[in-house]
């Protein structure tokens, strides 16, 4: 009689695939808003005024721009005025060190941030007139000249002191862009820095207290404690993380999280660091996967040959 097995196999496979399609790709498409990447172009922000000069920028950053009133610039020998938890108590969050701001953040974003922080950060909904709150970063109103050129000067200066793009490690990118709000416990990262090992229990406790104090200020500033990102690459996936970093409002309207303003390269590094925390075995998975596949295919071929041999006598 006719062999029905190919037909039966087709029926089983088709029904399985339809079920898979409906409960996985289709259901997720319905449940989750799809946000297209804008490739970190920041097209809503004006282009940088050409002619920015690092030397003039340095004067502004150190002088009239008053950046160093709050920000440290370790690379230029300007140390932090206070410990992170003290800074957070004053500002809500520790103002970032600007040493590598020029390589981590996009230039348009930086220029706009200097002139109008809530606009660049997309947190204007938090700092409305009714709220009575003002953003901890003061707006730069210009030092007497063309304000756009002055902003470009400062950006040029920040770029001049930053490490080269190829020297920016994934860890540095994460610590600069995310690390002052988001802990990453699986990488020993706290919002006030890396948690090292302590010889004495009381030193560890003292460190933990600083972290807790910092987190209390951060909670008051953000409304809730920003989540630990150790497993976020698995819980949110690469596409979500990338588009969320690009513009948090696009995925979660009204969120307190500011736009981060990272360059496309820095965003890739941030994601790589998140993979280093939450998906550490991705390369091993690939290579072991290939080996297992080769082994199983050989097993299947032998099983097929054995079946053919045994069944030769049965027909």
């Amino acid at each position, binding site marked *: 009689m006719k062999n029905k097995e190919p037909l039966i196999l087709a029926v089983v496979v088709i029904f399985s695939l339809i079920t898979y399609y409906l*409960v996985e790709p289709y259901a997720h498409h319905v*449940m989750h808003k799809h946000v297209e990447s804008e490739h970190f172009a920041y097209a809503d922000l004006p282009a940088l005024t050409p002619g920015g000069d690092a030397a003039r920028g340095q004067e502004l950053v150190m002088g009239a721009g008053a950046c160093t009133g709050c920000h440290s610039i370790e690379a230029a020998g300007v140390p932090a005025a206070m410990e992170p938890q003290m800074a957070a108590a004053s500002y809500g969050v520790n103002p970032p060190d600007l040493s590598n701001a020029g390589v981590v953040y996009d230039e348009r974003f930086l220029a706009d941030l200097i002139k109008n922080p809530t606009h660049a950060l997309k947190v204007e909904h938090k700092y409305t007139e009714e709220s009575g709150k003002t953003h901890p970063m003061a707006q730069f109103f210009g030092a007497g000249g063309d304000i756009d050129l002055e902003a470009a000067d400062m950006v040029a200066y920040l770029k001049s002191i930053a490490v080269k793009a190829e020297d920016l490690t994934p860890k540095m990118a994460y610590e600069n862009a995310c690390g002052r709000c988001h802990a990453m416990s699986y990488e020993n990262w706290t919002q006030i820095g890396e948690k090292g090992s302590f010889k004495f229990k009381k030193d560890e406790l003292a460190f933990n207290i600083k972290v807790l104090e910092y987190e209390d200020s951060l909670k008051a500033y953000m409304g809730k404690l920003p989540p630990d990102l150790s497993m*976020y690459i698995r819980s949110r996936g690469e596409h979500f993380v990338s588009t969320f970093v690009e513009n948090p409002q696009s995925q979660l309207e009204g969120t307190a999280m500011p736009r981060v303003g990272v360059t496309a390269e820095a965003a890739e590094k941030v994601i790589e660091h998140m993979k280093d925390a939450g998906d550490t075995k991705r390369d091993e998975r*690939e290579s072991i996967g290939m080996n297992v596949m080769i082994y199983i295919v050989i*097993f299947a071929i032998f099983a097929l040959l*054995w079946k053919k041999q045994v069944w030769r006598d049965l027909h």
Partner: protein
Amino acid sequence: MAHFTKATSVKDWLNQRLAIDKVEKVMMSEYWIPKNINFLWAMGMVLVITFALLVVSGIFLLMYYVPTVEEAFYSVNYTIMREVDFGWLWRHVHGVAASVVFLIIYIHMFTGIYYGSYKKGRELIWVSGMLLFVAFSAEAFSGYMLPWGQMSYWAGMVITNLFSGGSLHADGLVEWIRGDYVPAQAFLGRFFMLHVLLIPLAILGLIGLHFGALRIPHVNNQDGEEIDFDKEAKKYLAGDKAGSKVMRFANDFMSKDMMVVGIFLVFFFYLVFWNYGFAMDPVNFDPADGLKTPAHIYPEWYFLWSYEILRPFSVDIGLIAFAFAQVIFVLLPWLDRSPNAVPANRRGLFAIWFWVMLVNLIVLTAMGKLPPEGMFSQIGFVSAILFIVQWLLLPIITMFEKKV
């Protein structure tokens, strides 16, 4: 006392004490299988292999898993996924096998329904199989609690809430099951015990019963043919292997089992290494948080159809419909009034009943995952009604079925 002689070989020594030759005949070489069966008959062996993968990977995971609410998430996502050599591999194998085992169970089940393999002495095979389905469901649910992620916590909350019985407000029962007002340490501890001890024991016992129930009636065949196993076996043993309608379980059918297992494992390991997302829900990679309800709470795909029978109705009716869906499959051998143990395509209306049931379960599965809004809730409602109506109609349409 039995008479023992000096053993002539190790085999003879064992034979005198364990009758291994006889056991081998009963279980393997003279366990007769009809020849007119197709690869769907190998699903039992595929299930055995998948269950073995679950047991072995589970044993490795058990060495490092910590069943406390403080440590569970960390022990899974940090210790097992990062620190333990190949811990990630065991976890992925375990997670994917837990999902794939249900795909195979459903194929196995619908094979039985299509070919009428629950009739004429095979009722107990069906019933023990359905009990295995229940035990595997409980095993899957209890295992899903263990990583103590957001979906573990909230699925645990939702499913244990079902036991309040709607308007009965049996909140005391829910608290008794949880050991607390909300899922917490007592809850995690008892589900851990259930997952690694009590339910696996029940599964092993039921597998024994399932195999035992199969031995006397033998497996069914794809033509609904009644085979005289004794006569055909004699023919085979007399040397007419090609003329006999039966073959040995081992090595004859076993070789085909292994061929199907080989192909299945290629598919399985492809999923383990390259497409595991469907079995490891992203939401469960967020640690459990009783103050943050996820936007969408849904069970794993294999529970979606029964979830959707619960969901479109008001609470009490939903629970009754849900309870109906849980037990009705067990009663199939008695609800099917037709004496025909032949493939569904030769049974008239029953063929339509079968395909509508299968498609409707897929529709219910899809609607169970999709948010219950607009069109989806209407489709879900109609499908749930259709499911119930189909079962009510089954005795009637089969009663008037012509004898073939």
